[in-house]
């Protein structure tokens, strides 16, 4: 198996409060890994450790995370986050920017100013995010005057524009209606051809639909990590079974 991200003995803290306990997990290249578990189990924190957003809110970690064999703590977080893009729970386009500028924002942070370079990338990203047909005639409109589902796809396009290697998704569809949700799921299916995707989700059907492997987190611990089909049909652990069959959580 071709490993993209390798996590060993990861522990994460907020102050003295330990939120992740001894997590070891390998994330394969160009696959979708779903992280499931009840609220407060540390799944979002885990995701935020991977692109060093955990430290933005004052968190700390011990253990090791390697991306392509490179130790995460030795990377420049600014460069790292270009490689590991993130899509958040609530759509968060920049309200002062047009749709075009929202998608171009990441490139502009990189110092790309030339519109001749930006325009094709913006178009490609919006197409990849399956939003192009809906917004191509009003790229100059504000990024917040479109529907919630469109905003979330705009945020995905914005992430894709930077050309990341990994896309981290933190419950990307939890604030959306069923139709927008299915669009996002189709999108994930498309994207995994070219990207490694880690998706945190509350929705077990969603995990079953979109992912290749699933990890079940509970109380800050990794309980079970296996092929998605195995987790949902024949889990090895009793707690996992109880959770996926809806007996708790």
């Amino acid at each position: 198996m071709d490993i993209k991200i390798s996590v060993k003995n990861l522990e994460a803290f907020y102050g003295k409060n330990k939120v992740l306990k001894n997590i070891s997990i390998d994330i394969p290249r160009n696959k979708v890994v779903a992280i499931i578990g009840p609220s407060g189990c540390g799944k979002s924190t885990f995701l935020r450790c991977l692109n060093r957003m955990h430290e933005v809110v004052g968190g700390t970690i011990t253990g090791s995370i390697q991306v392509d064999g490179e130790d995460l703590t030795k990377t420049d977080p600014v460069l790292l986050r270009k490689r590991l893009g993130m899509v958040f729970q609530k759509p968060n386009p920049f309200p002062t920017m047009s749709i075009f500028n929202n998608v171009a924002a990441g490139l502009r942070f990189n110092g790309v100013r030339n519109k001749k370079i930006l325009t094709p990338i913006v178009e490609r990203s919006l197409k990849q995010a399956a939003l192009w047909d809906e917004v191509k005639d009003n790229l100059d409109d504000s990024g917040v005057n479109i529907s919630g589902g469109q905003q979330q796809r705009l945020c995905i396009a914005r992430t894709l524009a930077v050309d990341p290697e990994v896309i981290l998704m933190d419950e990307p569809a939890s604030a959306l209606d069923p139709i927008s949700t299915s669009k996002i799921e189709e999108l994930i299916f498309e994207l995994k051809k070219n990207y490694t995707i880690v998706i945190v989700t509350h929705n077990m059907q969603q995990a079953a639909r979109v992912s290749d492997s699933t990890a079940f987190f509970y109380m800050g611990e990794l309980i079970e990590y296996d092929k998605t089909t195995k987790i949902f049909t024949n889990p090895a652990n009793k707690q996992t079974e109880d959770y996926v069959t809806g007996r708790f959580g």
Partner: protein
Amino acid sequence: MQANTKQTEHKRNIFLKKIFGSQNFGDLIFERLTLLFAVFVFLLVILMGYEMYIGSKISIEKFGWSFLTNSVWDPVQEIYGALPIIYGTVVSSFLALILSVPLSIGIAIFLSELSPGWLEKPLSFLVELLAGIPSVVYGLWGIFVLVPWIRNDVEPFLSERLGFLPFFRGAPYGFGMLAAVLILSIMVLPIVASISRDILKSVPQSQREAALALGATRWQSTKIVLKDARSGIFGATMLGLGRAVGETMAVTMVIGNRALISPSLFDPAYTMASVIANEFSEATSDMYLSALIQLALVLFVITIFINAFAKLLVWSMERKLGTR
């Protein structure tokens, strides 16, 4: 018997509903009472404006618009032209803003974006404390510390190095426009800084994270936040301007109090608020009093415009971002 009382109660309820609509009676009183208080504030403003208009009638009739354009303020000759006084107010306020706004925004950025939690609380408290110091204390400090410093060090230095500019010429009195500008900028600073900090903090955290997750540096994500907050910060600046325009005591104590239009910051000047505070007790004739009240009316109108404009901006920004 019981059926009877029930019936009367029912009738009474219908009766009350007819008078007061379908609402609960207590709620209705509560609503009307608070409405009355709110309307009272509105009436107060109108009443003040009206009173000032009536009080300044003699002066308005005699001088008309020339009150605003004439530059002679001579109570002995009974000639009242407020131009140098309006000039003093406007110039001192704007220069104070130019000095204090960049500093205030810097403080606000540090407090909301960069400072660690343990430092933010005490620093914010100190900034807000600065806003609460009575202005006469600033004035006293101005007279005994700021003015001597300006007279002995700042003005000689400026006239030596930059004396070729018309702004830095003349005798170093200490008391004058420069002292007023400096003291005003110190007084405006905490207001602009603390409101700007609140505005920056009201920008959702998700905006910063969105930028950072795209590979933005700290400075780039701060720029995004500043862009979201720009109209609110402009509103904060306007509120600072409102304070500077209306500031009386501290300015009166250091500005030199002479109705003079001079390009030099070393020269004494006068502001509307200081004229009123200084000359009210000497206003023995009706015309003098009337002119002072007209001056108050001008200040009142300017302040209302500035504040209304500022509130509108802050409000429009909060609506646009949909915060809270």
